């Protein structure tokens, strides 16, 4: 069983600075997404649905909303006696202490945690991506190929390939070259930042890498190319399906808008692969006599008197009469005053758009100075 063989380490300490006000006071994994979720819910639910019951979550940047959201892991069935979820922040030692310095360093600093679990395989995940994936199938592939590392990869348009870590592979999926954000990409197969390592091999490498003063302690820049150079078996696991790195305001907005298409391949309505999240115990949404709603995803607790078109309304949003909201994302607790007009606007949580305000001029506008990511 996967349960005892493989544990997951989820990197959730990044800032995601390109998300601007969304991540100024909140970690990217805790940013609200798709009406009721946060970005990290996708990776955590993938773990739950893949029956991975040991998940270490590495936090660093603005962890409050994130830690409160995860709690003891109840929504993902990770509130367990054996295994379960563990939040792993940077810590002091007798030699002093330091912040996590690179993705590989973050794992290195928690060698103890992994040793206690004594897994055969370690799944490295990022809390930044929107996708559904059965990690069990990836592990089967990893075992079948007798790989040291398996990297989940997705085909991207060639013109975008220079934004990603690109895997150059042979026909059988084995990787012969690894290029981090190449200027002239040779291939369109991008790393999704999802890795399965044989723990013994990774453990050796983490220690070796830690002792190397020239290393950035990064999986993409150091560990993976290093292993390849050493002649280890690296394989690309081809993933086909919805996957988005919502790293910019535009991609965040677009990925939310994708959910309005009932045929979208992420399919949140799939009962066999539920995305789990914390529940806020609010009543169903109320759509009043005066509202007009066309193409919208609306969450519990909302009260809608106004007009909504092509928009996402998160938990407990209120839209007053006569307001017009189009192509917009309203985060939890946002209040849209009477006759306000919003086009392509992201309203941060608990912000109040006053009566009659007109917002949005074609570019995606963020309304509100800062989002703490909390649901009150």
């Amino acid at each position, binding site marked *: 069983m996967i349960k005892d063989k493989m544990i997951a380490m989820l990197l959730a300490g990044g800032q995601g600075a390109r998300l601007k006000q969304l991540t100024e006071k909140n970690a990217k994994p805790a940013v609200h997404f*798709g009406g009721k979720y946060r970005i990290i819910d996708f990776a955590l639910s993938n773990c739950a649905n893949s029956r991975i019951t040991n998940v270490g979550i590495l936090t660093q940047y603005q962890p409050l909303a994130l830690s409160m959201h995860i709690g003891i892991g109840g929504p993902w069935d990770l509130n367990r006696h054996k295994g379960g979820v563990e939040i792993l922040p940077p810590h002091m030692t007798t030699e002093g202490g330091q912040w996590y310095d690179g993705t590989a360093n973050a794992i290195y600093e928690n060698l103890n945690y992994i040793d206690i679990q004594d897994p055969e395989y370690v799944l490295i995940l990022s809390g930044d991506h929107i996708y559904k994936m059965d990690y069990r199938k990836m592990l089967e592939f990893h075992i079948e190929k007798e790989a040291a590392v398996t990297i989940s990869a997705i085909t991207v348009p060639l013109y975008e390939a220079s934004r990603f870590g690109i895997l150059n592979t042979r026909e059988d999926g084995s990787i012969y070259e690894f290029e981090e954000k190449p200027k002239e990409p040779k291939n369109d197969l991008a790393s999704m930042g999802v890795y399965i390592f044989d723990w013994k091999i990774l453990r050796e490498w983490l220690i070796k890498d830690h002792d190397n003063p020239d290393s950035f302690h990064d999986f993409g820049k150091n560990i993976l190319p290093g292993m390849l150079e050493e002649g280890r078996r690296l394989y690309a696991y081809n993933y086909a399906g919805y996957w988005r790195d919502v790293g910019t305001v535009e991609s965040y907005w677009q990925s939310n808008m994708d959910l309005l298409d009932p045929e979208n391949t992420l399919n949140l*309505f799939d009962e066999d692969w*539920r995305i789990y*999240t914390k529940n806020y115990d609010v*009543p*169903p949404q109320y759509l*009043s006599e005066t509202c007009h709603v*066309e193409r919208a995803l609306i969450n519990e607790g909302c009260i809608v008197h106004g007009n*909504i078109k092509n928009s996402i*309304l998160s938990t407990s949003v209120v839209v007053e009469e006569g307001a017009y909201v189009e192509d917009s994302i309203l985060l939890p607790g946002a209040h849209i005053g009477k006759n306000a007009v919003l086009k392509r606007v992201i309203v941060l949580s608990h912000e109040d758009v006053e009566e009659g305000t007109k917002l949005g001029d074609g570019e995606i506008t963020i309304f509100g100075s800062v989002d703490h990511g909390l649901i009150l």
Partner: protein
Amino acid sequence: MKMKVAGLINLGERETYIKELTQFRPLATVPFAGRYCLIDFMLSSMVNSDIENVSILVKDKFHSLNDHLSFGKWWDLDRKTGGLRVLYPDIKEETAFEGDLQRLRSNLLYFEKMKVDHILMTRSNYVGNIDFKSAFAIHAQNDADITVLTKNVKNGKTRVDLLGLDILMKDGEKVYIGRNLGNQQEFELGIEMYFIKKRIFLEIVREALEEGRESSLSGAIKRRLQSYKVITHSLEEEVLPIYSMQQYYNASLRILETEHAKELFYKNGNIFTKTKDAPSSLYMSGSQVKNSLVANGCVIQGTVENSIIFRNVHVGKNAVIRNSVVFQGANICDDAQINFAVLDKRSFIGNGRVLMGDGGLPYFVGKGARIL
């Protein structure tokens, strides 16, 4: 400081007039308000009033109840100290199924050991968001043996829906519980909620069991009211009894009144329930939703007006739902028309089918029924 009170929710309410909805479930777990069960309102009111020890005296149809309660986790009642306890009848006792008084018998020791001084005895089928803290303060200040909670009714003669329910009668200082026959215009409605000193509660239960003439717990208490120091307290909150299909339907549609909904869902704290992890609801092009309460997980293409739509309901193209209550997982196909109806869980209404009830008596479609 937490209250020194334990809750006791006594199920086994009369289901004669709401048989359709209680065939497979007790009244306690009859779905209500899009995502709740009736008992959620009582459990949440208790928990929000700092009552951390709640017992549920059950009668039958345990399956639905167990499924919903999940050891009390949704109400923070999965505790080492206090928490939720379901009191089952002891099947070894021949009299176990006679009445709630007998069902309570095998659990009396539990009440004795409980480290509380008072018991709040209620039913599961009154919908309200009740502040028991204030009510208890009055009970405690007056050092009453029993405090009878009531709800004031001003238009009794026209309230057909309240016929046959408890009514508070007074003879000087003495308090009686009678039956409402519709003769009084203004009265205090008995809502079957009592604060009782634990000592008195045990005394009454023992005495009634000893005498052996009674089978009803509430009857035993009502008959002995004159022997104790009894006060009454009229609740300000809206409290709606659900004993009949008509009451159920009316109470359901009343949630569409904004002020009522605000009180019911938020006033003394949120209402907690079992979560189902459905995504937000998707409204597609062509959907027309007006004055309706819609839970998560729905996909709506058609028209919904003046209705309560539970979780995971699909409403097809050009389908029209009006003045109706549609339970979880129903599938309303294209062009179907539904008016004045209550559709139980996972019902399937085929293309173009027409179901019409009447405001006086909603059309009922049973659990899992398929109308092709």
